[in-house]
């Protein structure tokens, strides 16, 4: 295939992935890599490099809209970014030493989790009033706007959340994904941060986390300009379109379709990993 044929094809695939990622809130990166490797036979390392770059674009591009809503908590974000960036460094180092077949299987497992996550309803915000000393000392507790005025929240289990964030960062660096789902779990379920605050703060953190592994990817030659160009532009365009469509879209149906697509990709990735094709 010549570049003139390849570039629009990759742009199209990436735009669809970015749009679906924005609509479902799972991010485009997690779909781009399997699409490139399974459909076009791109080496998984090039795909991961291009996907990571697109993750930075969507995270930073979306931040403006999220911040204005007043949900994100810059202190929680900054504190947890220590864990995610350290994890991202570890993940990026591991990525250069892990056989591609194993990367493919791990990717498949993460996709399976994403499929399961997106097909079920999220649990309601749990209330805990267990005070956490670290949360108080680091002033992590905050408030968010609600119809009845600002609502205060308390953060708990900071240590657990911090460890989970290290894991999320490692996966992000290993697979070139934003691992937003895992970041939300760490904040929403472990630290009891309200869901809206978790999702927006997670989005805020994804760019910084990805930048930490991007430096290592760059020096290892994972970021190939001819491939990263259509992926980054495609995912960015798709996610901007998806974010605009979010209101009024039939999210429930979309989530099921997305879960099905991701589930099929997950099995394909695991199978090709086991057969040693990638």
């Amino acid at each position: 295939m010549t570049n003139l044929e390849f570039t629009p094809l990759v742009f199209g695939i990436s735009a669809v992935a970015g749009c679906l990622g924005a609509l479902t809130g799972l991010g485009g990166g997690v779909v781009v890599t399997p699409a490139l490797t399974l459909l076009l036979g791109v080496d998984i390392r090039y795909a991961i490099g291009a996907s990571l770059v697109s993750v930075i674009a969507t995270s930073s591009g979306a931040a403006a809209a999220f911040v204005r809503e007043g949900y994100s908590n810059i202190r929680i974000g900054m504190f947890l970014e220590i864990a995610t960036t350290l994890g991202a460094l570890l993940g990026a180092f591991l990525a250069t030493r892990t056989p591609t077949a194993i990367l493919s299987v791990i990717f498949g497992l993460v996709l399976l989790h994403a499929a399961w996550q997106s097909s079920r309803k999220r649990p309601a915000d749990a209330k805990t009033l267990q005070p956490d000393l670290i949360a108080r000392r680091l002033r992590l507790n905050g408030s968010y706007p609600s119809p009845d005025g600002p609502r205060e929240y308390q953060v708990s289990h900071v240590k657990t959340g911090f460890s989970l964030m290290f894991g999320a960062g490692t996966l992000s660096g290993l697979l070139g994904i934003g691992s937003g789902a895992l970041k939300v779990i760490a904040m929403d379920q472990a630290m009891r941060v309200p869901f809206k605050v978790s999702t927006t703060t997670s989005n805020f953190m994804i760019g910084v986390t990805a930048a930490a592994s991007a430096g290592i990817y760059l020096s290892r030659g994972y970021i190939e300009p001819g491939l990263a160009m259509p992926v980054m532009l495609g995912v960015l365009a798709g996610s901007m379109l998806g974010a605009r469509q979010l209101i009024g879209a039939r999210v429930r149906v979309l989530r099921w379709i997305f879960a099905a697509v991701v589930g099929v990709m997950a099995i394909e990735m695991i199978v090709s990993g086991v057969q040693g094709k990638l």
Partner: protein
Amino acid sequence: MTDQRLEIIISVLLRTGVLLSAAVVSLGGICFLSRHGQEQAEYHVFHGAAQIFRSASGVIHAAGPSNCPAVIQLGLLLLILTPVARVVFSLAGFALERDRTYMLLTTIVLAILIYSLAGPHL
């Protein structure tokens, strides 16, 4: 300076960074397709990007009308630097708030990012 104002300034910075980088990548992409459009797209086997595309200094030196892929890479480099700029801005914001704890935490994050981008990789 409040946290909310700081976040709004940062979000404008992020959006500017992304748009600027997308513009440079598009420019490099058009140039790349017009020069190398008929060449084969070969990404099946991993060789790693060319040495000049692997470091900031290499990319900055090579980028120009005679090297379109380097222009794309320059745009991608701008994108990678956007979150780093965000951390620098947060550091300045916390300094204005005289929040020493968060100045320290932000400095740690910045150090990790600088290590990734410029440090010696094992």
